[in-house]
């Protein structure tokens, strides 16, 4: 399966030049960018690991691509995403988020159903990746 989180998951994987163009758009808006990675892409797993702090005051995408590539080198089979943070009043939240690296095989999720009272069902989305210990997932 292919996880379709982020802004551009329905497009073919972005090339570095395309990633750069999106970063330039964020920088043009005055947003700070951060690189995050995870081996558990559960839809409710909000806090991926930070590859360093969000990068403030950068003028060019080169610095962020440098970190993306550093993260890819360290975690070639993890999910890696770029997030752009807007600090202006009224937003103060991510304004962009897109995946720039994914494992060659994406195991995806199972749906666990627990029958409850009446006809109700309690649903749990389960990451297959987390069946294995950290460090052995991909």
């Amino acid at each position, binding site marked *: 399966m292919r996880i379709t989180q982020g802004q551009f998951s329905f497009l073919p994987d972005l090339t570095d030049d395309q990633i750069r163009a999106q970063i330039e758009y964020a920088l043009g808006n005055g947003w700070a960018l951060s690189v995050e990675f995870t081996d558990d892409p559960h839809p409710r797993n909000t806090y991926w690991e930070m590859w*360093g702090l969000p*990068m403030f*005051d*950068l*003028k*060019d*995408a*080169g*610095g*962020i*691509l*440098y*970190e993306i590539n550093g993260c890819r080198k360290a975690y070639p089979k993890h999910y890696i995403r770029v997030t752009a943070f807007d600090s202006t009043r009224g937003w103060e939240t991510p304004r962009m988020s897109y995946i720039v690296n994914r494992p060659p095989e994406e195991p995806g999720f199972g749906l666990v159903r627990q029958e409850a009272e009446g006809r109700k069902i309690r649903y749990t989305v389960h990451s297959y990746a987390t069946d294995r210990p950290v460090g052995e997932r991909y």
Partner: protein
Amino acid sequence: MADDSHPQTTETASLGELYRGSGIAEVLAQLDAELVGLAPVKQRIRETAAFLIVDKARRAQNLTSGPPSLHMCFTGNPGTGKTTVATRMADILHRLGYIRKNHLVAVTRDDLVGQYIGHTAPKTKEVLKRAMGGVLFIDEAYYLYRPENERDYGQESIEILLQVMENNREDLVVILAGYKDRMDRFFKSNPGLASRIAHHIDFPDYSVQELLEIAELMVGKMDYRLDDGARAAMAEYVARRIRQPNFANARSIRNALDRARLRQANRLFGAAATGSQAPGRDELMTITAADILASRVFRQTSAADGEAAHAPLSDR
């Protein structure tokens, strides 16, 4: 694409176009206007610009050359215009498309090297990332290397710097700057770095005449002027100051002028307090001989000459 049997006329035409289209002429003109003298430096800048234009034209014709190494080293004494020229160099590189953004990040050792283990790498990387897309200007770069302390973190910084200079050539142009002799020693101990610097530009000290021209340029920019007496006093001042320690070329001239402005204000204020007419536009603009001759530089040579050596700012 370039076919030897058919001389290409378009090539030379496109060179001219490249030159005009890039707006390099404006940058060079600006350099001429704002920097007095420095003929050899300007010549080297012109050569570098020409090289880059030709390189671009060659690449347009698919002639192999590989991306040129653009890292540079500017040597010379303080106040000889290295930072200004670096800014213009960034402008040139940007107009020719060798860097993506027209910006220059100027740093010294303190910005790159940390205080404890694990501090230096993130600090250096932070600076490198901020500079990416433009020019990183490292002033007094030799302070990065302290052979007397083998656990100095400067070496770590140099290694990261080297890596990025080599692997991210498209992202970053590094200009190292400092005194010539120290830089030469630094390169001797760091051959890896030396081998990655393709362009060396030496900035000579200014002559007395050039320094006077600089002074005129500076007062003009600040909407002041020197009267004849002041001009003569300034010539005398420069002649003396240049022989004193800590002389910093254009920077010393700026400091001297800043003090002259203070004294001028004081003079006008004192006159007003004793009931003179309020100064007119002319008087507000004019710096006189007295404003300059009150400098310690004149007193020191006549009396206590040695004092200047331990005055923190010997430009007084």
